[in-house]
């Protein structure tokens, strides 16, 4: 039971990471390898601002989210935008470069040993069969709120509809008079923001190492593909499936094979349902 509860919380974070991934993947058409290290960056910025600069945790987290979103935008402008007419696979390779640069900077600034935020003592709340901490509740509420917001943006706002149009048929978007440049900027902004929030939460739940996000990347990929690339709700649902499967595997199989479970799910989806569960077409 406890494993299931943990699975839901981990799943929420995997889902959020997948949400950030799926937005860029749908519009830019490549899986951003730097996604994992962006999570790491957000967590370490929070750590640096709260433990290093002695800010209270909430403003530190807010600043870290802002900083990470800007960093992602900067990465887009310098590393990805110049490749807009190149084959998509070069963007994929460039994103490996971005991932390594972020990881190296994080390691150089904050070192490689395990760290954690200085959170107030956590009191676990018992709910009968399992208990949850305040952090868990914050994570779930934030994730659900954020998914709702992203869903609203994509399906109700003009900016979101333009994003979906560019993801759908890029050339037609141009002759529709949509400013593709602005749409791309907005996509990276939204993805960066969502990823940053996921990273801050991940740091609170798991603790910090320079490989924090990298280790979650495989699960995020699997969740994205499972939920169909471009589907925000699919990414979150995929995240929950992955989180539950991975946490339950620690009970029934062995904690060491968590990532192997993610790989098996990814392979199974590609084998049987390569467009994911939600793909209607």
């Amino acid at each position, binding site marked *: 039971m406890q494993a299931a509860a943990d699975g839901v919380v981990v799943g929420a974070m995997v889902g959020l990471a997948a949400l950030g991934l799926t937005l860029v993947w749908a519009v830019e058409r490549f899986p951003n390898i730097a996604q994992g290290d962006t999570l790491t960056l957000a967590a370490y910025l929070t750590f640096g601002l709260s433990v290093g600069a002695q800010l209270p945790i909430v403003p530190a987290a807010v600043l870290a989210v802002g900083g990470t979103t800007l960093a992602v935008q900067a990465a887009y402008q310098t590393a990805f935008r110049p490749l807009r007419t190149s084959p998509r696979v070069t963007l994929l390779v460039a994103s490996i470069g971005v991932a390594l640069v972020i990881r190296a900077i994080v390691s150089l600034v904050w070192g490689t040993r395990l760290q954690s935020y200085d959170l107030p003592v956590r009191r676990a709340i018992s709910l009968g069969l399992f208990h949850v901490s305040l952090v868990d509740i914050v994570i779930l509420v934030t994730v659900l709120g954020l998914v709702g917001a992203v869903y609203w943006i994509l399906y109700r706002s003009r900016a979101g*509809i333009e994003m*979906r149009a560019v993801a*759908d048929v890029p050339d*037609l978007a*141009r*002759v529709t008079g949509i400013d*593709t440049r602005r749409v791309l900027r907005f996509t990276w902004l939204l993805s960066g923001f969502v990823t940053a929030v996921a990273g801050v939460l991940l740091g609170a739940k798991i603790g910090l190492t320079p490989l924090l996000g990298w280790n979650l990347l495989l699960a995020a990929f699997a969740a994205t593909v499972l939920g169909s690339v471009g589907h925000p709700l699919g990414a979150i649902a995929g995240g929950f499936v992955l989180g539950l499967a991975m946490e339950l595997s620690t009970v029934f199989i062995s904690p060491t094979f968590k990532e192997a479970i993610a790989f098996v799910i990814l392979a199974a989806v590609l084998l049987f349902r390569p467009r994911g569960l939600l793909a209607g077409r």
Partner: protein
Amino acid sequence: MAVLEAHHVVAGYGDSVVLDGVSVSVEETELVAVIGPNGAGKSTLLKSIVGLVPPRSGSVTYHGTELTRLTTERIVRMGLSYVPQVENVFPSLTVRENLELMLPAQTPRPERQRHLEDTLRLFPVLTSRLPMSASVLSGGERQMLALARGLMNRPGLLLLDEPTAAVAPIVVDEILRKVEEIRGSGVPVLLVEQNARRALAMSDRGYILESGRNALSGPARELLDDPEVGRLYLGLRTPGSDRAPRSS
């Protein structure tokens, strides 16, 4: 002044030249057909007018304004509507979203509604489809949506790339009738068609392209009656080479 004037346009992909100095013009209220064998550059002509394939030389003016240096987004917002031959609707968007995207973001709601109603009057089949995803439309309905999208922003010129190419034969008549209706409403149309005889029959003037150059042009009636044209372009369809747009 002509609505559209393309003069000696040269354009292509990579190393290959597809348009080698093509000139066409469209006057107010005219329906002008561009015909010719496959690979003659008909589609590329429309693409270079809207800047998707930027012309390397030559000039394209719209009501006297030079277009060749402008981005596609700007050209479209000036009032040229371009309906591509394939991929001309967004399948994962609803029909309503497909239509409303054609209007600039800042269009006030009442005006947006008016544009929508006007468009639906010409395409009543779409009314009941508004909330549906465009991916569930039939081939004919999809083509209607593509035309409707082209008219949504009340364009000053409509560029149509083979609107009958991808639909079932029974729908062809219906679509061509719509094109005539559109012209009847006062919107000038530049129509690229592989169905040469039909296209000339409904047009005011026609251009025949061959290997990226103007071969013949004139009033549509004269072209239709010209025995030479009949033999070369309207009779048995020339087994023209299906030139891939991007040769390696």
